[in-house]
């Protein structure tokens, strides 16, 4: 599954500079353009970026809209959480860079996507999940009582287990009736 399939919202589309130039000026966000930005991946799997002639070592890619669209408004940040700049849309960049950044997004936002719910057993305030995911079969435990299973958009469900690990049901409406019934009890 590519990242593009993940994005469920069609509303969020990057527009150049927004509709209010005054606001953009006030925000002073530095947008990285493909012309003067170069991303490289080191042998040690670290991402480096050279922007405006300055090299930054060990940077991370943060998504502004990790649930609705992972390809737009990416924030490139240092480990100290300082923003080096933003990327409006991955599409502006050459394919190789796109792939590199997509991998970094995957690394940071790793969350198996549930393709099939096998069973959800509720017992004593916890639900025990068994599911087929994009990363294989996963079994995990979710605390009951609300808050751990959240609808992020109309059909995208985020499930957080007892350790804070995240799982995603990307299309709630594509679950079978049986699966949906199991999931619904925990929502």
């Amino acid at each position, binding site marked *: 599954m590519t990242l593009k399939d993940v994005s469920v919202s069609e509303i969020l589309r990057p527009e150049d500079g927004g509709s209010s130039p005054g606001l953009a000026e006030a925000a002073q966000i530095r947008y990285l353009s493909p012309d003067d930005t170069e991303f490289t991946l*080191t*042998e*040690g*799997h*670290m991402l480096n970026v050279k922007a405006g002639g300055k090299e930054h*070592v*060990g940077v*991370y890619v943060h998504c502004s809209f*990790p649930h609705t669209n992972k390809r737009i408004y990416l924030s490139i940040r240092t*480990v100290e959480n300082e923003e080096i700049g933003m990327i409006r849309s991955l599409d502006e960049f050459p394919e190789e860079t796109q792939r590199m950044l997509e*991998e970094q997004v*995957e*690394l*940071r*936002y*790793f*969350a198996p996507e549930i393709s099939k719910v096998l069973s959800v057993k509720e*017992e*004593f*305030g*916890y639900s*025990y999940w068994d599911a087929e995911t994009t*990363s*294989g*079969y*996963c*079994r*995990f*435990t979710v*605390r009951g*009582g609300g*808050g751990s299973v959240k609808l992020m958009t109309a059909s995208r469900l985020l499930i*957080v*287990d*007892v*350790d*804070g*690990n*995240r799982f995603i049901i990307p299309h709630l409406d594509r679950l079978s009736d049986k699966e949906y*019934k199991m999931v*619904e*009890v925990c*929502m």
Partner: protein
Amino acid sequence: MDTLPKAIMNALAQHGVASESVLCWLLCDRALENGFRDTYVLLTREELLILSHDQAPAREKTYSGYAANTPLKGLSPEKEAHWELEALKIRDIESLSIVNLVASGMVVIKAPEERAVAAFTNGGMRSAARLAKIFEKLKKSEELGPEELRDDQERATCPKCGMIYPEEGRQVCPKCMKKHAVFGRLLSFAGKYKVSMFWIVLFMLLNSAAGLVIPYFQGTLLFDQALGGKGTFAGQIGLVIALIIVFRTLSLLFGVIFGVINAKMAANIAFDLKSSVFHAMQRLSLSFFEKKQTGQLMTRINNDATELQYFFVDGISYFVVNAMNIIGIVTVLLIMDWKLTLLCLLPLPFVFLLVRKVFPKLWRLSIRRHKRVSAMNAIISDTIRGTRVVKAFGMEQMENARFQRASGAFSDAEQSFNKMGVTLFPVLNILTQIGGILIWAFGGWKVMQGDFTFGKVMTFMNYMLLLYGPIQFMNNIMNWWSYCMSAAQRIFEIHDAVPDVVEKPNAMQLTEMQGEIRISNVTFGYEPNKAILKGVSLHARPGQMIGVVGHSGAGKSTLVNLIPRLYDVNEGEIRIDGIPIKDVSMASLRTHIGIVSQDVYVMSGSIAENIAYADPDCTLADLIHAAKVAGAHDFIEKLPDGYDTIVGTGGHNLSGGEKQRLSIARAILHNPKILILDEATASLDTKTELQIQEALDTLIKGRTTIAIAHRLSTLRNADYLVVLEQGKIVEEGTHEQLLVKEGAYYDLVKKHDEALKMNEVITA
């Protein structure tokens, strides 16, 4: 520490590494690309070892909390992985850090280039933090203390079923929880109501015994003997009717008596339970209340107590009585005619089956209905409370549409629930009535053949009807029992919870305090790998005022919370008057410390009670003087009810500044040697702040003060300033010294001045 898996031990041995030399290790269960692939990161005294294999990612994964002995599907590569060992000398590695990703972590080393070694899911965070810490100590050639090498913070597993306890620090396996033990403990709670319980059960038994004879009177006695003209009661209809009336009245009377005793006991037990839980809660540390899972625990307490109340009131007594009823009725029926009895019990299994199968569905539908109605109510409350926003942005139409959607969803859920309900219950009814029809059919046939009397059939019929209630009760009792025991368990947990911050057994009573504070090399964090304070040292001489400045999130409030020991430091020490605060009794420590913080909590009660909260026995004169010093006297006098004004929930609404002044008055009256001002004036406007500033200046005199402030003007009287940045002290000195330095403080002042100027422009 958990033992290393055998395969890893073997791999180490193959590479000539003795597994005993491993100080700590971390299982990184995520591949850097995608999916799950195990990499082990191990630490010996000299080396960092990385064990990895190049097999395809595992196709299955069991996260913590799930029963550990669940059989795997066998999807992972079967053949033994070949482990590659990479050994790096610690002296060649500049640093090892754990980078927090979303719900994962990553081990990054610098040797000398930065390099991502492996990633792990969130469950490994604690081990990872420990690895990083031990690495740092090894790097600095520091000796490892026993507490570093001992790892008792690993998640424990249930010894019985192997399931990892689903909640950290809560060693309760919900599967293997000894329900009997909990039940026994619960009964001991009810111990002092033994007498009441005895009477309740006795009267309930009498009540049902009296009820049980009636079918016999109404059937055999009335029809066969009185009407049929045979036996002892032949022709004595009046007497039989009278007997029925007497027994009905008796049954009713016993019922009333048991109800009255029960009502009294129920209220008493509920009171006992709630007050004991409340009492147990009060002795716990602040962190207990702030932990996420316990927050949830708290909200459940009230429900749990109610649940247990039902358990005592309805559960135990009804269980005894219903069990007796079932045994009694079935015995009577079997004696009367065992064949007919078995025949009319025939539909029972179907009833059970239906209830088992369909009730969960109905339950699910009712949950759905409940959720939808909550969602709808949330929108209603949103729009009503946020009317101002809705109207200001002209969004009424959108809110209408939002409500329409939620309301429609609720209506759908309501319909499906009702449809199911109106189908299920009539079917159940018919099924239960089939037993009766069978009696009529076979009983009637037997009457025609002359084997049976009509009265006997009537008796049978009536007993049958009496049987269904208790059977239904028993059908639900197992679920309900589990539920009650879990509720009891949670309540006992609060009882048994050990406060994080514990007083030493022979803690010192600090009667006099000079107010010298020495914080040395303190490290503290609420969560592993997220140290809020790192190696902070500070010294305040008696009577000094220390200002703590820094950006929000720098750890200022955390620092001052450590002084009254609301939390215990992870490393380092805090001494007051040269005595470690861990050796001082908490009560005596806290009597000498006063806190005025940004969010003031006003208790329900009068203003006077609020000011005198810490010293309820103070004189009225002191109370008024304190209020005067705090600048609260004037506004209180203006109130129609003066110092008797009721504030707090449901009482008079005080403004932010007024509340703040009350809390200052509280601190003044408390008269502590150490005063902590945590953004005491941050939420107030400039004018009010100036007024309160005067009050604070009076308050500070003669005390050691540690003040945190956003507005630097608040700290103009400070003897000494420290600048905190990301948990570290980056600068310290007097205002003048720091200005000359042109460092972090200088920047803060400059920004602050700019902000002030902006303010002037705006207000001008």
